[in-house]
């Protein structure tokens, strides 16, 4: 690279220094406002800090012992897992269906893709409120629709009924997120060589057969990405809960992230809230790890 002999050593030295200078602002910000708070949250979780006092009392593992016995925590864990699993399955099924439709549609492809993708771009809080209006028991459009088509028994209080509220939230989350995974599936589908499809058509394979033997196996990598992403996003659901249910009715839709927020900021138990947050982090890691291991295996076999 360098032809001049003398400055070589010096330039290498300065280049070395300069390259670290280029990284320095990013490093300081990331370390200072992400890593240090993330690591110190381990310590916070071992205290009974209330969010206001100057001193923090060290209580060892008490928060974690309380947590295991806390029915509210177990309920939030159950809700979070229900939402995450339902969301991962439904969102991916719908997203794949939408991707197959939009790939095949002959007119208005961009327009359809935009319609499915638009909800992804809007805020969870804002769209949450719009759905609160649409799902209202008395003047909501959803119930008007069910009454109009003669399904009066479906016209229920969607967000106020403890048995249905969580599934209503899941449905709104599917609407909000499916377009994102659709875009990723569309990219996966466009990577499948046309020759394969044509050859199998000539051999007389039906469309479902083609899907099962060609499309599905060749999308393995895309599945890995989408399932991992939807899982991580499912565990983090928060804005919609704030806007639509505040965790209610009762605690029927309270998720992990909502409990952390409510315990830490409404009840002033920030030490306990941090312990919950650490558990959320561990659950995220375990889920992502397990899923990746399982799906990678499938990719290799495919």
């Amino acid at each position, binding site marked *: 690279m360098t032809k001049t002999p003398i400055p070589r050593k010096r330039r290498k030295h300065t280049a070395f220094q300069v390259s670290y200078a280029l990284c320095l602002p990013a490093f300081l910000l990331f370390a200072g406002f*992400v890593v240090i708070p993330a690591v110190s949250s381990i310590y916070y979780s071992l205290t009974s800090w209330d969010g206001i006092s100057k001193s923090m009392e060290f209580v060892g593992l008490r928060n974690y012992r309380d947590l295991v016995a806390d029915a509210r925590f177990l309920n939030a864990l159950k809700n979070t897992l229900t939402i995450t699993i339902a969301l991962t399955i439904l969102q991916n099924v719908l997203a794949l269906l939408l991707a197959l439709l939009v790939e095949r549609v002959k007119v208005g492809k961009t327009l359809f893709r935009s319609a499915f993708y638009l909800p992804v771009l809007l805020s969870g809080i804002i769209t949450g*409120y719009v759905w609160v209006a649409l799902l209202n028991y008395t003047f909501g459009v959803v119930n008007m629709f069910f009454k109009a088509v003669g399904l009066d028994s479906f016209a229920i209080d969607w967000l106020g009924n403890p048995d249905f509220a969580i599934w209503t939230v899941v449905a709104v989350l599917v609407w909000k997120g499916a377009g994102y995974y659709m875009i990723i599936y569309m990219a996966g589908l466009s990577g499948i060589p046309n020759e394969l499809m044509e050859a199998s058509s000539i051999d007389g394979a039906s469309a479902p057969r083609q899907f099962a033997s060609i499309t599905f196996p060749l999308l393995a990598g895309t599945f890995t990405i989408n399932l991992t992403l939807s899982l991580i996003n499912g565990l983090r659901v928060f804005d919609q809960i704030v806007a639509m249910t505040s965790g209610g009715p009762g605690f029927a839709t309270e998720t992990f992230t909502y409990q952390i927020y409510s315990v830490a900021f409404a009840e002033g138990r920030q030490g306990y809230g941090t312990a919950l*947050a650490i558990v959320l982090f561990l659950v995220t*890691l375990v889920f992502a790890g397990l899923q990746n291991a399982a799906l990678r295996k499938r990719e290799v076999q495919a």
Partner: protein
Amino acid sequence: MNKKKIRASDAAIIAVTAVLAAGFFFPIYFTFISAFKTNGEILRSPIALPSALRFDNFIYLWKKTNIPAAALRSAFLTIVSTLCMVLVIPMSSYALERRKTRFSRFLYIFFLSGMMIPFQVYMIPLFRQLKILGLFGTLQGPIFVYVSGAVAFGTLLYSSFIKTVPKEIEESACLDGYRSFQIFWKIVFPLLAPCTASMVILQSLNIWNDFLMPLMVMPANRPKTINVEIYAFIGEFQVRWDVLFSGTLISMVPVIVVFALLQKYFVSGIMAGTLKG
């Protein structure tokens, strides 16, 4: 016969897609029409078009609520934060990608580990830290948090893009006596424009739409961000759906306009964000 069958299936696909798309788009359409209705109209005939094009809701918002001031703050936070990201992140990704040392590889992994940490995990210590640093209740506080929070995703995005930029240009600039800083800003940075566009668009959306962080750390006695003010407004006036929808429309419109103008960058940004697997 065969041709006819294919055409019939095409029509069926168009019909199914169109019905689904209409369903997906309905809530956004509903926001648009409701923003121009009276509260009574929304309650009585929710799917009807507004009886007249009236702007009373927006006038009410302008005169009686914090929402316009909050929208301005949201815009300020969004613009300044993404600008700072552009000053900090591409430069560091370039250095990490071009000078491979054991330390730079470590730093790359270190930055990417941020992708695995949910905000809730570090928010409580972060808020205390902002108080200690005197950044709590200021406008700078959220900017620091946004820029720092974007380092992980930004590094991922830029590193995969920089790999595709040929080194020869930089090398000839190097022989011409440019120094590293100059090489980066004068020669490399312009080449990264598509990647910068993706990052700016995706991150500005996140900031504009953010809720929890600004709710917690912004000054209590002044307007916060648009979504936080809409949330506060609902807390106070639960039955003013008309005003709620006009506020919601103000929050949605910039997003929809940006998307309509810059569609292709959204797709490339999403795809880059999935490459980590």
